[in-house]
């Protein structure tokens, strides 16, 4: 059996600021394990669900009520606990305006 090498998340999703706790998928991502580059070196991130291109996934565990950062600024607040790797969208994120 040939094990596939996990893909590096940096090649299929983009973060726009060091402060961001979400990345935006550039292509359709299949559920599975990905390599995540961080300051501390490389780690693994498990993406538990398919994520379509243009949608966001959490880069760390995010608590209910915590701010979601994209572009280095708050784009809204989490409406539930969000596990690292999960999709972040209108079902668990609400505008803070």
């Amino acid at each position, binding site marked *: 059996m040939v094990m596939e090498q996990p893909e590096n998340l940096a*090649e299929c999703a*983009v973060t*726009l600021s060091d402060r961001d706790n979400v990345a*935006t*998928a*550039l*292509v359709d991502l299949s559920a599975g394990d990905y390599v995540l580059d961080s300051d501390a070196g490389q780690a693994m991130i498990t993406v538990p669900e398919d994520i*379509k*291109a*243009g*949608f*966001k996934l959490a880069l760390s565990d995010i608590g209910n009520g915590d701010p979601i950062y*994209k*572009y*280095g*600024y*708050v*784009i*809204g607040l989490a409406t539930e606990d969000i596990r690292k790797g999960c999709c*972040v*969208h*209108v079902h668990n*994120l*609400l*505008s*803070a*305006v």
Partner: protein
Amino acid sequence: MSSVKLKGYRRSDGLFGIRNHVVVMSTVSCANSVVEQIAKIDADIIPITHQHGCTHLGGDREQVLRTLSGTCDNPNVGGVLLIGLGCETANVRRIASRLDRTGKMVETLVIQEIGELRKILDAAHESLRRIKTFVSKQERSDFDLCSLTVGLECGGSDPFSGITANPAVGLVSDKLVDLGATVVLSEIPEMIGAEECLKSRIPDEVVRQKLLGRISEYVQMAKDAGGDMRGANPAAGNIKAGLSTIEEKSLGCIIKGGHSDINELVEYAARPMRKGLVVMDTPGNDPESVTGMVAGGAHLVLFTTGVGTPVGNPVAPVVKISSNTKMYQRMSDFIDIDAGKVVGGTPVKDVANEIFDFLLDVCCGRQTATEVNNCREFAINRIGPDF
């Protein structure tokens, strides 16, 4: 950073044009057909017509005059022929007097004074011969990029606009500001929800309060008109494509302004007084917003688009940048640069370098898709009704 030298047409107000256009403009919509007929017999000129120039009240009277004269005042224009009717508010003399200091050759023809169409066309032919001779004698000389003004626009955005094309243009904006140029960020309604980001970047308290106040006014105007921008934005289509909140949408839009401080908020079609990144009070309507920035002196406009649009301007090259490769391939002759290649792994900064190099080429005469295709939209933003 070291300076970048460009070649341009020196105007007597000290600015340099990257084009040397001869404009024939109607000062009121009643003169539009005459301008169109002049354009039919003289393909070298840039005709500009519009729906305004008379029966305006208050702020509109000044805004229309400022937009018409500002467009002629743009450094890319070398000579102007104004065609008026005779009884309108925005009459030829009012506009011509605002162009005195520019040293451009400005001639005027008034339909009611000359009379018959044949005589008007003959007079236009004579005027244009003089103006073209004058313009043809203007030479190009070196100028520093720091006297360049670049407008920013996005139209027909998609979820990739905020992660491919706009961040790439944002890096170009930062570089232009570092080099001393003026960069104009526009479209106030597309700043709703991004107030926190904007606030932290406006050192001048007066400018900060003015901009935040103007953003709130747009929210109120939408409510007064029976809509709610915060409720309707992002639209259902945006949400289906991955955009979540209005903050996300607006931040993805203003990122094309980069990360520099915002130094000024200028009125629609007014010329910025300060260098660096400034904001112009324009609506989200693309032709109106681009027209305002060019009337405010923008030499060229960087325009990102997700769904694709031909919008150009009569006197300023508009550089069209696609956010996704699929649209670029489908509308290739309307687009100059594809930022969609970021999805395929090209770093955003490489696309930014490509845009910057293209911008320098355009300054030196390379034609943009809008110029090749004669896309010359001209639309004036209005404040109130006509009477």
